[in-house]
């Protein structure tokens, strides 16, 4: 059918519904059009813009065969209390069919404090596992073969230290570093912009990150050295387009820093990975995943002149949106997570964590985690959504929306370039303000009823307080402090002192790669707090400025 004929048909259709639609209430959050046709994608060149899976610009997926070869990695984020408790949960997940581990650390660990630091009071073991030294890491991975499992660690400011601990545990298991598979989040820019667990100012933080890129490219080649994260930006309230735009802008900043440090783009770009949020609007999310791959491929090819195909592939881990879970009628969250899972799978994710129904209330119970994992397995094995590659390609709406999100992302990326790049845009508060404005708009839309959240602002019921929530007892903190004191009494304290002094000297020389020095300190059982303490002394600490 020619475009003229389609246009004539569309005009006829529009005339036929004009009377009915004039009576519809205003619903500003809906897409501009109620119907999409071939006319909406008539300028999209299939070969150039959509193409084939495993081929530039990777709109349809990064692997040639996607889930026909194997499903995504079902990777459940877990960790709480002590290393021994978390080790039990990890082994339970592996026995239940999870195919990768994902470690959650408590806040003191994420900010580089030991459990016995006064600032850690009340936080030890709460949102993740407490790790003070190599001794805890040994317990965390007890009876888990690091040569077989792939492990993702949500750790940013002290990522270098936790990676060093992981390498050291593997050494003790007899697994060489070049066999290790996994990911460290290591994305400090989104910590400043959205997540809040920063330690050092941007410049030394970027140095630590490029040190890791360089060290791993030579010694831990299968390791994903960074997970450039839009997830938390979205959780903080951004839109879908902002999520991918700000994250890709962060990615550009990391590449520029690494190139400035003397690395070649194709030596590290293949180990960069991304982290997206799977939010409520299924079709918008699918379009977001597709658009993000296309934008990154173009950035790598056109801006950085990467040559290896791997450098141009946006590989992504996904987590369903925690901020969309409701405390009201928590079982409804099972349905939300199922739809978000569908979006991530049709979007072509490489791995996925599904949230549990009770996470707006507390850490998830084992039963809730099982339902969340089963949700992935049902989508994989029963739903048919994973049967063919990129099944929504060619949908007039999804292709048009993919184009729209890509266009909006470029506009933001160009704007950030004008400001001087992502680091400058964060220092000026631009990215934070954009996210805050979107978060406020969302909240006001929910309060006005423009946006409906089932059970929150519509279809509410009286509810009994939920029962059986998981609670981390305060005694966990006490026990962990005792463990730490016992370990310190047993280790060779002279060796620790010497290693920390050596690390300090290395920190002061900007041209020195810190990874070997950190690994050396970790092996002496120097604690996370001691190692980060040395770096705090030399590098100072970041201070945020908030404009409401």
């Amino acid at each position, binding site marked *: 059918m020619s475009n003229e004929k389609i246009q004539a048909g569309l005009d006829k259709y529009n005339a036929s519904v004009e009377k009915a639609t004039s009576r519809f209430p205003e619903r500003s959050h809906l897409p501009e059009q109620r119907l999409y046709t071939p006319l909406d994608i008539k300028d999209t060149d299939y070969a150039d813009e959509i193409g084939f899976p495993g081929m530039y610009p990777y709109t349809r997926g990064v692997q040639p065969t996607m889930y026909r070869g194997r499903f995504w990695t079902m990777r459940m984020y877990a960790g709480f209390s002590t290393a021994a408790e978390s080790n039990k949960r990890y082994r339970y997940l592996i026995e239940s069919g999870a195919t990768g581990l994902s470690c959650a650390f408590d*806040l*003191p660990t*994420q*900010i580089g*404090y030991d459990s016995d630091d006064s*600032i*850690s*009071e*009340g*936080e030890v073991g*709460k*949102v993740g596992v407490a790790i003070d030294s190599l001794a805890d890491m040994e317990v965390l991975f007890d009876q888990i073969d690091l040569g077989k499992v792939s492990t993702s660690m949500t750790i940013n400011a002290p990522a270098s230290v936790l990676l060093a601990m992981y390498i050291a545990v593997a050494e003790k298991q007899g697994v060489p570093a070049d066999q290790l598979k996994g990911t460290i989040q290591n994305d400090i820019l989104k*910590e400043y912009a959205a*997540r*809040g*667990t920063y330690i050092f100012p941007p410049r030394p933080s970027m140095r630590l990150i490029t040190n890791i890129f360089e060290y791993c490219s030579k010694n831990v080649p299968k390791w994903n050295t960074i997970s450039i994260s839009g997830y938390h930006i979205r*959780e*903080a*309230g951004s839109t879908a387009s902002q999520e991918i735009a700000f994250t890709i802008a962060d990615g550009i900043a990391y590449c520029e820093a690494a190139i400035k440090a003397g690395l070649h783009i194709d030596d590290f770009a293949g180990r960069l990975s991304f982290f997206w949020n799977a939010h409520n609007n299924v079709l918008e999310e699918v379009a977001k995943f597709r658009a993000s791959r296309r934008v990154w491929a173009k950035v790598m090819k056109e801006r950085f002149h990467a040559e290896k195909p791997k450098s141009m592939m946006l590989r992504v881990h996904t987590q369903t949106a925690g*901020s969309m879970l*409701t*405390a*009201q009628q928590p079982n409804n969250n099972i349905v939300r997570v199922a739809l978000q899972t569908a979006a991530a799978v049709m979007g072509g994710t490489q791995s996925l964590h599904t949230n549990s129904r009770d996470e*707006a*209330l*507390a*850490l998830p119970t084992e039963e809730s985690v099982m339902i969340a994992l089963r949700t992935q397995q049902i989508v994989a094995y029963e739903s048919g959504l994973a049967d063919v590659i990129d099944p929504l390609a060619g949908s007039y709406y999804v292709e048009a929306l993919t184009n729209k999100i890509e266009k909006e992302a470029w506009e933001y990326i160009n704007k950030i370039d004008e400001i001087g790049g992502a680091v400058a845009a964060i220092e000026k508060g631009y990215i934070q303000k954009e996210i*805050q404005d979107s*978060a*406020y708009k969302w*909240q006001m839309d*929910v*309060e006005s009823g423009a946006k409906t*959240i089932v059970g*929150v*602002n519509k279809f509410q019921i009286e509810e009994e*307080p*939920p029962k059986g*929530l998981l*609670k*981390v007892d*305060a005694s966990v903190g006490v026990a962990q402090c005792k463990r730490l004191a016992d370990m310190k009494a047993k280790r060779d304290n002279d060796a620790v002192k010497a290693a920390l002094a050596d690390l300090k000297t290395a920190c002061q020389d900007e041209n020195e790669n810190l990874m070997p020095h950190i690994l050396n300190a970790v092996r002496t059982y120097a604690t996370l707090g001691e190692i980060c303490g040395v770096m705090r002394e030399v590098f100072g600490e970041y201070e*945020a*400025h*908030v404009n*409401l």
Partner: protein
Amino acid sequence: MEKRIRVLVAKPGLDGHDRGAKVVARALRDAGFEVIYTGLRQTPEQIAEAALQEDVNVVAMSILSGAHPHLFPKVVNLVREKGMNDVLIIGGGVIPETDIPALKEAGIAEVFTPGTPTSDIVEFIKANVK
């Protein structure tokens, strides 16, 4: 003209989740209050000191990390120790229902959990501020 209500919005502890705190801060400002936001990682001592220096009527805290049983009461005690007996202290975040009675016992006037409209917080402050 009546003096405007002054509110300190505070993030005690190490938790970095401040979407809620910032949204509430802005909603309170839009409702006509004067709002001071502390930023992240404030110790209870820093929060009590800021409440005193800023001469606020209300301290509104947010925690999503589970550290509220430890940190909320600590702030209340320090604020009262500094002689601010009339300051209204409220809290919010991911806080299980079962923890709320103990927090109220400790002097937290009200606890707002996920899904609360910001207008409820505004109304509560207007009705209870001294």
